[in-house]
């Protein structure tokens, strides 16, 4: 039998091994293309599907974990409550990677507190926000990321200022913050790869147009507006250790900044129009403020900090996953209880 090697990745799996159930979202929904990029990123990285835990909240975005990595464990949790659920789960086996998909309502309205505290703790997980500025599943209400002045069919005009998820993440001391656009498949994929290899919380705010309720040409979260106005900070490539040599072939020296991650991975950032240093928190906030003032859709790796230990490392856990420990490790000795009884009064 002839095996077609080009159809398998470095661990011998085909792309089918990374797929999920058929999507039940609208045709053309940005979320579907993000799900596809998650599949491709995991396939190209050679991730073992069983080593990913998928999480989500409630909403259109939160349905999407059913549409990728069918072999992974997943938990479609409650509206706005994915962050604490994932936080508890990651303690069970720290050799697994956590990947969460949320929406702008799920994260920036009902789940804002849990989101920011997850970020503050540097909970090791990829947290993707599929941001479309609108509540889809309840048929088209304004979300907290909708721009002021947005007109929606049955809602009128949005009078409130939007929440900027990247800014919220940075001021809560996030260690990896990126913004992307569902229409920019390559960038989405590279960011997901980098995020999966970040040792801490990685927030990806991906503008993901809602073709049914918020896709008017002049709306911030639409395809047309995104395609016309996306301004990438750099061209981003995630570089696994194996491929190090490729950088020099692809990019001219002097135009590429390399960001070292833990475990020897790297992110290569090719300079575009302006210099941008994603390790400078102040510059990141300044850039976001400027983008907000001017209604720019700036995409790319906005901020990264690689040496802050994630939540689980601070707990000094056993090398055996906690969920594989047995009675012997979990129940203290008889003598220790005698000692406690002797001291109890």
């Amino acid at each position: 039998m002839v095996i077609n090697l080009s159809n398998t990745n470095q661990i011998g799996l085909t792309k089918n091994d990374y797929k999920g159930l058929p999507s039940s979202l609208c045709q053309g929904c940005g979320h579907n293309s993000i799900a596809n990029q998650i599949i491709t990123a995991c396939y190209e990285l050679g991730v073992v599907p069983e080593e990913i835990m998928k999480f989500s909240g409630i909403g259109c975005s939160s349905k999407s974990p059913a549409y990728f990595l069918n072999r992974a464990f997943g938990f479609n949790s409650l509206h706005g409550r994915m962050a604490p659920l994932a936080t508890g789960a990651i303690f069970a086996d720290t050799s697994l990677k956590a990947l969460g998909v949320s929406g702008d309502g799920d994260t920036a309205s009902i789940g804002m507190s849990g989101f920011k505290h997850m970020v503050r703790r540097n909970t090791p997980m990829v947290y993707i926000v599929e941001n479309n500025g609108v509540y889809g599943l309840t048929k088209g209400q304004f979300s907290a990321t909708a721009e002021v002045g947005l007109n929606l069919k049955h809602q009128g005009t949005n009078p409130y200022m939007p929440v900027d998820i990247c800014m919220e993440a940075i001021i809560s001391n996030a260690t990896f913050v990126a913004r992307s656009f569902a229409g920019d498949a390559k960038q989405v994929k590279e960011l997901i790869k980098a995020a999966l290899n970040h040792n801490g919380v990685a927030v990806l705010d991906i503008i993901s147009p809602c073709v049914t309720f918020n896709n008017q040409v002049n709306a911030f979260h639409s395809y047309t507006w995104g395609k016309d106005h996306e301004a990438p900070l750099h061209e981003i490539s995630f570089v696994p250790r194996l491929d190090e040599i490729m950088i020099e072939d692809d990019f001219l020296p002097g135009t590429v900044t390399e960001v070292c991650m833990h475990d020897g991975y790297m992110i290569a950032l090719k300079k575009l129009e302006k210099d941008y240093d994603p390790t400078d928190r102040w510059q990141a906030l300044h850039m976001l403020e400027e983008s907000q003032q001017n209604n720019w859709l700036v995409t790319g790796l906005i901020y990264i900090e690689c040496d802050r230990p994630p939540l689980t490392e601070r707990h000094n856990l056993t090398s055996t996953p906690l969920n594989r420990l047995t009675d012997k490790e979990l129940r203290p000795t008889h003598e220790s209880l005698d000692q406690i009884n002797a001291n109890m009064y």
Partner: protein
Amino acid sequence: MSEQKKIINDFSITIATVNGSGSQTANTTILRALFKMGIPVSGKNLFPSNIQGLPTWYTIRVNKDGFTARRDEHEIVISMNQASFMEDLASVLPGGAFYYADHITFPINRTDISVYPMPIKELIKNTDVSPTLRDYIANMVYVGVLANILGIDIEKIQSALDFHFKGKPKPIESNINMVKAGAEWSAANLKKTDPYLVEPMDKTKGLIMADGNTAAALGAIYGGLQFEAWYPITPASSLAESLNEYLPKLRKDPEGKSTYAVVQAEDELSAIGMAVGAGWAGLRSMTSTSGPGLSLMTEYAGMAYFAEVPIVVWDVQRMGPSTGLPTRTSQGDLTFTYFMGHGDTQNVILLPGTVNECFEFGSTALDLAERLQTPIFVLSDLDLGMNQWMTNAFRYPDKPLDRGKVLWEEDLEKITDWGRYRDVDGDGIPYRTLPGNRHPRAGYFSRGTGHNEYAVYSENSKVWESNMNRLRLKYKTARTIVPKPIVDNSENSEVGIITYGSNEPAVYEARTILKNEGIPCDYLRIRALPFAEEVNEFVQAHKRVYIVETNHDGQMNQLITMELPDKATKFRSVCLDNGFSLSARWVKEKICAMEAN
């Protein structure tokens, strides 16, 4: 004082102080010294929701017969608080004793009690303690005066202080010196005119003193607890804080690595969310809270019920509704917890009645959660959780941890058709896999939405019905494995009393008094919901059944009435809802009055 007037080891002491003045050390020192003398004691702290300044009372009951329930009366009152002075003076039983700090200069208008002024300020002047600590140390003066007048052994006070200050010589010395100064001053200046005395006994052998929150924490630790998420709330905080104290000592592996994690969450929504995540991923998982926190936890509790995730929720109850009385005890969360969650839910609840049972249920709850794959609620209360009680020494669990129905890689190898929600054994409990299981068929997608036996989203009505029916079957299984009630039918009476939780000591004592007054009562203490068959049998066997509890509406009475509607005419609800735990006298009087009708 004549010989025959002596009253030995049978009275209550109430100490009135200002909240935040450090009197807790003095009060628990008296309690522990009496316990070390072998005399049965109990201590109750009646404190305001305040850090500093409002009146606080601590009551110690000394009882040679071992009754530990709260009493409404007190023979001895120590007044250290000007604000409550007149009220405290009026509260002393005739023939009792009133000790007071002599810088409080109200007129004392009672001649039917003994009065002992104490020169607190004078005596602390002569110590070498720093001014910042003086107010705290001042409380030791009343410990000394009381020791002298009651006959408390100073050596036992010394060992209580050794324990309290964990052997640190400096605070022990300054405190014991103050105790001695008080005792010496009293011996030289006061003449005993009241009849109350203590004498050593041997009635505390094999017993320990502990509070229910510490016991719950230790029980969970010996029950293999691996994950706790919590948010601070009175009166539950000390449960999680006890975990933080004991886990690092008890649960490190030989390399010093932790076999557990405790996370303080941002609110109770997240506390239970984290616990559900950890429980889903295979950890022995718990959260601890009180009423207002429990309200917030409803959302995830309902999901854990429906997605069948094992978690334990300790609710150390306080007075509700709403913020209520945060520092007063209650059993008001029973019906709320029983049905907690929207849609059709029915929860498994454990009801510990002693500190020792808090320890035992600490691990039982984790076993049941993993066995039944459902949230297990443990309803303790402020009285049980925060007060010091005499209790049997904690018993080492004699059964291995019950990890429930979990399939690992090698198990899946042997099974061709595994479905997360399939009832293979006919008990309503399916098999689950845990993240980290690398078998290609191990993964599944948990959800709070409708799902079929393979955990796949489904809106099919038949699928929905059969899943709900299976959950009901599982609840039936729960009925057979939760802790059985404690039953005492030895009186062979037509009158029975049903109670639960921390009502146990008051009801126990009330039965003794009722028997002496010609109303012997049988007894059943419920320790878990769903109701065991024994409850039905007990009701069947008695003509009148008093259901005694500490809430306004008689919530257990409501639940039993729903359970046994055809026997509802037998039930008589006896409930108290004023922030205090029950006293035996109150229970006795209520039942006597209702028996007379």
